[in-house]
């Protein structure tokens, strides 16, 4: 039954990456009300920027730190000069705009770094291999399993125990009321979008040692992240966590036991949740 353990680890490591992406997506939706199609491109951008920083400084940790921060600058500009204009418009404007941003980012990356495949090495500290259940297992995957809950925990504490976190939650509940009591809501929006961008780009930088870098690398993870967000409940933080875990584990066990049916699992799960709890697992019905 050793492979059960390996399967759990496989599922968890993918699930935790998924969680980082989904939590950014869900927070942006919860506060700004914008479904950000370009989230996957920010993930991809994070990976490329991490690679670029690594080429300058030869350190993965610096790449992990600076890469996503550079992406945040782009995120802030996007929010301030583009997204801001469509908050009060029909939802279709937001979808069109974020989709356009996706295309621009993808082609921009292609122009700068080309369309060839790039690979990023894991840091030396984590490049090793551990023996688990008699089989080699990369330490980097275990690191991914740990980093997900750590970042999730920090974010959760931030939202619940700090003043700024509480302000953000207030703005997401009722932005007009928040503005009424003197909260600078436009600033909150910019900060939240920056946070969402940072989470996506961090996910990309963390994924870089695992997968090859191409402009379309975000496609799979963004589709699954959307499913996670819907399953967990749009805007729900614990929902994103549980949804990502579910999808990650079902993916790895589905591969093992369900054969070709495995591909349908995320969609079946999505359909089932929508039928039983149309607002997602963690959202109180409206």
């Amino acid at each position: 039954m050793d492979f059960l353990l390996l399967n759990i680890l496989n599922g968890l490591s993918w699930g935790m990456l998924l969680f980082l992406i989904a939590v950014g997506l869900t927070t942006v939706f919860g506060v700004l009300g914008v479904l950000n199609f370009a989230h996957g491109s920010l993930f991809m951008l994070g990976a490329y920027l991490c690679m670029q920083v690594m080429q300058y400084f030869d350190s993965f940790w610096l790449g992990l730190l600076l890469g996503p921060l550079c992406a945040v600058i782009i995120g802030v500009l996007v929010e301030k000069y583009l997204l801001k204009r469509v908050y009060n418009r029909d939802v279709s404007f937001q979808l069109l705009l974020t989709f356009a941003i996706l295309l621009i980012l993808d082609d921009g990356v292609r122009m700068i770094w080309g369309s060839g495949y790039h690979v990023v090495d894991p840091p030396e500290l984590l490049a090793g291999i551990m023996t688990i259940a008699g089989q080699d297992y990369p330490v980097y995957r275990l690191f991914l399993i740990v980093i997900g809950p750590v970042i999730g925990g920090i974010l959760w504490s931030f939202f619940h125990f700090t003043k700024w976190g509480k302000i953000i939650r207030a703005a997401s509940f009722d932005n007009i009321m928040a503005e009424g009591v003197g909260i600078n809501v436009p600033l909150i929006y910019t900060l939240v979008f920056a946070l969402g961008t940072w989470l996506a780009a961090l996910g990309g930088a963390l994924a870089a040692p695992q997968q090859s870098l191409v402009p379309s690398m975000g496609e799979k993870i963004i589709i699954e992240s959307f499913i996670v967000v819907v399953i967990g409940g749009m805007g729900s933080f614990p929902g994103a966590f549980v949804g990502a875990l579910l999808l990650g584990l079902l993916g790895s066990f589905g591969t093992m036991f369900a054969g070709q049916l495995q591909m349908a699992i995320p969609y079946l799960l999505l359909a089932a949740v929508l039928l039983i709890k149309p607002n997602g697992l963690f959202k109180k019905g409206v």
Partner: protein
Amino acid sequence: MKKRALSIMIALAFVLVSFVGVHAASTVKIGFTYIMSGPFSAYGQFARQGAEMAIEEINAAGGINGQQVEGFFEDSTGKADVALRAIRKHVYQNKVDILIGLDSSGVAKTVVPSIEQMKTPLIITHAATPDVTGSVCNKYTFRISLNLAQNVKAASLLANETGAKKWTTVGPDYSFGHQSWEYFEKYLKQLNPQATFLPKDQVVFSPFKTTDFSSYITKVMNSKPDGVFISLWGGNLIDFVRQASSMGFFKQKYEVLFSLGAATEVLTALGDKMPEGLWVGTRYWFLANNSALNKKFVAAYFKKYGAYPSYNAHGAYSAVYAYKAAAEKAGSTDKMAIVNALEGLTIEIPTGVITFRKGDHQAVTDAHWGKTAADPNYPLRILKPIKIFKGKNVTPAISETGCSLGAAM
């Protein structure tokens, strides 16, 4: 005075336009269709480089039958409907004399049946599905690159030599992956009736967009095979190799064969992360042929682009030269004359001497396999030893391909 200047300018413009028109009419036009965007665009990039180099060389040497050559490039995006639109644009708008390209087998299978209506010859340089020179073959469609049946035949000869009995596969979840496994099973069974193959639900076909292969890797390792036949390509292959080596996949006792492992696009990206001693196959390997032509091609390519030519670069490059040979043999660029000239044409290209078979228009070309090895002179893994399977030994008989061109004549 002003009016006069204007009329002179207009007259000049007319002269220029008509000059351009005349000029355009006197060129030979080639329409290339490759994947230029998305996860597999590195392949399209290499093909374009190969094609542009061939055109430059030919133009510098006086063109084809005295006419300069002009290349048009369209993006297939790897999707059948987009590719078909690109091909239509080439034929009806760019008015090309010949079509070259196609990467994906799925795309090729959709595009090829409509080539007949467009009455324009097509030379496929990458897509490997046996069907386009088999069940859906037609008079206008040729293929210069090694097809799936030829490559997998070589793989099964190699697999038979290893003595491994119980086989499984990891392949992309579309026609190419499934057909590769089907042919591998068929050929290896003929060579060794004792070989066994894991049932459909235990082998792995991963979706195109997969980036995390860990659970597939665990699944294959857990099924304890004697041999694993892998037909992944592009970014999928890179991700699989990196994740598999960190999970100890290559340390196991089984044999591993990568049917498309020796693509320079992939080997360059992987560098020293490609494990040594794995069997990898390819349609063209830049060190496999010592001919003067190949050496010249590799040197010129490296000088121009700073990289070693991949099989896709080679395919596009060679197809342009095959067209040139056909046009010179026919003494014209009339489309039907080209089709007739290409049939049975024998030509030397960097990979060796090939012949477009009359019966199915598939090039009889050698299959190259080798074991990955490190070499300080190269930034990527090279193949050592190299195994060359002669074209005539790996190309199935025309009766086996299911192609009947007689009816189309």
